[in-house]
């Protein structure tokens, strides 16, 4: 059964997303909303990772069996300026999308094994992840025109 593999995958991905939100928060601290909101969204991911712990214990987390390429890479560093912020938010969007579809995968399997605990966790975490995507989408839309059209090379 590969459910354990995917639980492990999502556990790591949630931690990676949390860390990436924190990186963007710190790297763009001069944008107060990015700083505050990214920290807030990072805490949401922490909570997801924590809620997966008892489930990985139930099914056995099998991180090591899976090729590394299935894991989502976190941000390696943050960029600067308006375009840099945009690109970093896009990277977060890609990562959060990966987490989002992984909830979908887990949700399908959870129903298959008729695990009500897992279904409840997936439902609630998936809705959080979708809020994260909504926030990223909103902030990207706001930043895009000014960053692409009006910001200089150093800003």
């Amino acid at each position, binding site marked *: 059964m590969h459910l354990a593999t995917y639980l492990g995958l999502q556990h790591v991905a949630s931690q990676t997303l949390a860390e990436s939100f924190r990186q963007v928060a710190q790297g763009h601290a001069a944008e107060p909303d990015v700083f505050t909101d990214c920290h807030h969204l990072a805490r949401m991911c922490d909570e997801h990772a924590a809620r997966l712990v008892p489930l990985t214990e139930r099914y056995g987390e099998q991180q090591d069996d899976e090729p590394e390429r299935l894991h989502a890479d976190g941000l390696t560093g943050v960029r600067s300026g308006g375009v840099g912020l945009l690109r970093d938010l896009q990277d977060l969007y890609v990562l959060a999308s990966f987490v989002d579809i992984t909830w979908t995968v887990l949700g399908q399997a959870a129903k298959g094994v008729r695990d009500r605990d897992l279904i409840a966790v997936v439902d609630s975490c998936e809705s959080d992840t979708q809020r994260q995507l909504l926030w990223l989408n909103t902030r990207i839309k706001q930043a895009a025109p000014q960053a692409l059209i009006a*910001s200089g090379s150093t800003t």
Partner: protein
Amino acid sequence: MADRIADIWGTRTPHGRDTAWPVRVDQHLDPSVREEDVDRWVQSACVLCSNGCGADIAVKDGQMVGVRGRAVDVVNHGRLGPKGLYGSWQWSRTDRLTRPLVRDATGQLVESDWDTAMGRIVARSKELLATDAGALTHGFYTSGQLFLEEYYALGVVGKAGLGTPHMDGNTRLCTATAAAALKENFGSDGQPGSYSDIEATDAIFLFGHNMAETQTVLWMRILDRVHGADPPRIVAVDPRTTPVAEAAVATGGVHLAPLPGTNQAVMNGLARELLHRGWVDEDYVSAHTLGIEELRAIVEPYTPERVEDISGVPAADLRRAAEVFGTSERVLSTVLQGFFQSHQATAASCGVNYLHLLRGQIGRPGCGILQMNGQPTAQNTRECGADGDLPGFRNWANPDHVQELADLWNVDQLVIPHWAPPTHAMQIWRYCEQGSIKLLWISGTNPAVSLPELARIRAIAAREDLFVVVQDGFLTETARFADVVLPAALWGEKEGTFTNVNRTVHLSEKAIEPPGEARSDLDIWLDYARRMDFRDKDGAPLITWSGPEEVFEAWKECTRGRLVDYTGLSYAKLRGGSGIPWPVNDDAPEGTDRLYADGNFPTHDDVCESYGHDLLTGGATTPQAYRARRPDGRAFLKAAPYVEPPEVPTPEYPFAFTSGRTVYQFHTRTKTGRAKQLRRAAAGVWVELSVGDAARLGVTEGDVVRVESPRGAMQGPARIGRGRDGVVFAPFHFGYWDQPGTDGASPDGSPRAANELTITEWDPVSKQPLLKLAAVRVTRIGAGEGPAPAPTTTASAPADPAAVPATVGGPDAESSDQVGTAPPPHPAPEPRSPDHQPGSGGRTASAETTEG
């Protein structure tokens, strides 16, 4: 005669529930002028708070010499407050700007002429428009104190002429959360309640609203009920012991004093109590709302004990407040800066809306919500598109709404900046800081005192690559940073209309000529439009108006069919009688006293002003997701969990700092600081400490203390006040324009502006800055010169009344207040058809489908 400095609220005219509020006509004239010497009285309404009291301006020899309340006006029934009586007119012949100023070769601001000043603006504007960044280089930061016609003209200049999304006002600091909360719950901006609800109500909840000081005439209206038969109970939510809090205790209500930043926990706790105690109108909730199950799940953890842990509000007090809300036949709520400028502003203000929805307490006499404004014309900034909204409460994410404006203005839809969310004020300043906005046009506001983190704001305003235009009546702190200063005509010196908190529109006539070469803000923007030669898509001039009445007529067309419907109004209709609340149209020719009598809200997807947001993050709901919920006239019950504020006290900064207002001053005192009675009554800044904190710090009344946050410092004499331990308060009114030893713009070593301390942070939905919350430390510097200059008459009263002489006005503050000289005016009639709210969403295709 009354001294309205000492006696802020004047003579009581008590009356019982469901009886009319008696008339009392308040008047103050310059002591050298007798009533019979006044040449003429000119119709207007007061602009020194958001209440919108009808007032006549006394004119003698071409000068304003006093003011009198209009007995016929539904807003005030003749009354005026101290700011209006003394502060309305005395500034007019003081140190006004009379000629445009420009920078000379040495960088000094020097007097110039209109052609030179406007020529410089237009040259810079055209130069920037020719770059790749185009209109994205232009930002406009306006006010909540100009007239409707000025905002609409500015809106058209910015949105159809230039096409910049960077337009906002200081309304972002004042009233953005009111608008945001109304949009989130009801689909559109638009005040549900009416002041006339005070006459009919059984309980009044004031959430973060020190009404006794900020809207004195509205508070008189409440006091007259409190002193009459069947008085309403008052509940105050405020960390300070305000006159409102005292009234709460006196009327058998309750005063909740949450720690700054914890309002959301209190609101969730109140909602949980209503749900658990069965104080819910199940029929109303099922017929007229969406989201009850989500709300129930979110508020369930907020037991009174948990709320006490978070906020410090005793569990029994929370239960008592919920009981008053849950068991009173009619409940009226008001909300202001204690919520709007605090943490989780929109979520907490939505909390007030959902309490009313849960009990079905909306749309009936006595059951209302007043999401207040701070400024007199803030409502118009929101309506007219001079802030981050499209004119007429249109939805920038709805292509049909944008097309309506494109058709109205005859411009390409793509010119109208709807391809990104409108840029909120704090983000405009950030783009200036980053250098991508290169022209910032500031009108009628003083951000160098009123915005958070002033050192940062001064640094941005002083940037070499930012061309700053300031349009004002005075050389404010902000004006001293400008490249071009334009002298503006102010209230009484120009004609126009404006709209108050409860949608009442007033006409303000021109009483006197502006000083020197000063021009109205409208004339300035029309001149800019002419010089820029903005064209519509057929090559004809975009803007052809020459005066305010023409703009008003154009605005009426912009509102046709919207909730904010002005089509039944005209200057002629507004002249002579009372102000009239919108919507005013064929369905409601005499206006509309309160909205949503039919429980039909403007949430239809083709009507709504916004598709809504996640209250916790501000993520915007997609149009598809919104439609899928099929709101179709139902209101949204929206809640959010409490989350910890971004800045909390630490061992290094152990106090929670909150800023606010005093009854005698308005904003950055440009007008009230020039009225001698008001100036004396609150002459300078002070720092309020609780008795316990002062004792621990070794501070006594009047000692000079320094308050420091991670961002800056301010200092002033200490008032040992009546606040709760751990909370420090200072008024935000005081800057540097009249402070000796400074350059009039910045502290120069003696900082006294409260916003030196505040944090650059905003609410995720309304984007309103978090001005009410900073962590600070307090140090005693030395002994002062007597007691702090804090008034004794209000929330800043000393803990020991004997320690400080009482605040009085003296002989030149004498005013008359004559009771019962005329019958009370009647509020606007109920709509002709009780099932149909004029201007509401019931006429759309989706609604017809639902009803069919």
